[in-house]
């Protein structure tokens, strides 16, 4: 955990340095283009998070082990967080590049739908009745939601392609240093995700252990009061 924290911190500084200082300024857009590194990294991490939800959900249905459910839930929370980041940075980008916050840009639109899907997942985790039932229902949702992701992308792209596409300024020219900065941003965000996920899962474990101890105390108390 410690090493991971340090690694994430150091890489974070490097990534910031690369993105803001080393990477050349993009010719057309200027400074706002630097949002791009964090936008792409957030989006990537979000997808990674949802992939983990998907895999953990399948594992839960196959094994019934609580740890998979906790992992899926934790990862979904982080996925929603990074999706929100991707959405906000994407909107900021749109504002800087085209002067408009929201323009139904296909990738951003499907990210928004994705965000809604997993908000629904979190709601379900919070409102479902019964411990195991909740976990099973959420797992079903985690599976079907992820399988819908590529289909949502396809349909949104297709939907936008039916409208005449305005040729916009802001198509970037990628220079080598930009690629390096992007790579560092992606790696940093991924490490950050892993670090946060570990914490989140640990918190859930501790919560579980606490319930367990409470239960033991309750049973002991009941036994004691019965004896005398």
């Amino acid at each position: 955990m410690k090493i991971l924290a340090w690694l994430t911190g150091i890489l974070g500084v490097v990534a910031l340095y690369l993105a803001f200082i080393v990477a050349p300024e993009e010719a057309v857009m200027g400074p706002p283009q630097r949002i791009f590194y964090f936008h792409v990294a957030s989006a990537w991490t979000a997808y990674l998070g949802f992939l983990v939800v998907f895999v953990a959900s399948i594992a839960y249905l196959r094994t019934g082990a609580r740890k998979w459910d906790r992992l899926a839930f934790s990862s979904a929370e982080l996925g929603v967080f990074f999706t929100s980041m991707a959405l906000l940075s994407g909107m900021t980008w749109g504002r800087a590049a085209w002067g408009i916050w929201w323009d139904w840009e296909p990738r951003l639109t499907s990210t928004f739908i994705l965000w809604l899907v997993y908000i629904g997942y979190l709601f379900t985790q919070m409102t479902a009745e019964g411990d195991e039932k909740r976990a099973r229902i959420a797992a079903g949702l985690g599976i079907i939601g992820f399988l819908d992701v590529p289909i949502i992308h396809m349909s949104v792209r297709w939907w936008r392609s039916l409208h005449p596409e305005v040729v916009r300024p802001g198509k970037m020219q990628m220079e080598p240093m930009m690629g390096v900065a992007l790579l560092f941003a992606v790696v940093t965000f991924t490490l950050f995700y892993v670090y946060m996920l570990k914490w989140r899962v640990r918190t859930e474990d501790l919560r579980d252990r606490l319930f367990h101890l409470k239960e033991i105390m309750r049973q002991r108390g009941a036994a004691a009061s019965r004896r005398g």
Partner: protein
Amino acid sequence: MLECKGVSRLAGHREILRGVDLPLEGGQVCALFGPNGAGKSTLLKIMALLTRPTRGVVLWDGEPVRGRESKVRQQLGIVSHATYLYNNLTAEENLYFHGRLFGIPRLRERVEEILEKVGLYYARRDTVGTFSRGMQQRLTIGRAILHEPRVLLLDEPYTGLDQQGQAFLNDVIRDFRNAGGACLLISHDLPDAVALADKFIILSEGRIVREGSCSDMTAESFDNIYREALEVDRESGDAWAIQFRGEG
């Protein structure tokens, strides 16, 4: 016939059942007693294949049921807390629906026969929503025996029944046993159930604390055994109250 072995069940972190062994044999009625929250209904649901145990297995004729659930379900008749009836369907339609799910041959005659038997023939065309709880319970019992199961699992089946209804249910259980069926009966009417049953099991906090034969058992002697098994203070009487004292 139906048997559970080493069955444990966790709900979150609570152990609702802890290593329960319970064999049900043909021609026997097994009465299951215990205070509220002891885990009786959970045990019944596990044997009814509605819930899976966390540990342990359910066996049918000595073999694990896993993988042949539907064959075993065909042989189970279940009365649970809820009636599992559709309020918008008539008594006849409810039975007819279940009969089709179980693939019963000559269903029309069988449904009529059952309606006569449970004393609801006169109300067969009325929707179940208009029934009293006791009438619904009669229909539920009819539904449980409709497909001539080999095992009956009854969870507090006397709920809502009048005197005649209770006598009728006792007859059903006796007939069922005499025909070689195995019956698990959860009841809070200790004297009646002991008179009816062949063996008893007392469950407390998810464990079997006592089991034995019901023959030569009088109401008083069983009452003593029950109290002793639950370590219940005779003055305070109610096991339930004591179980929850620790929470305060």
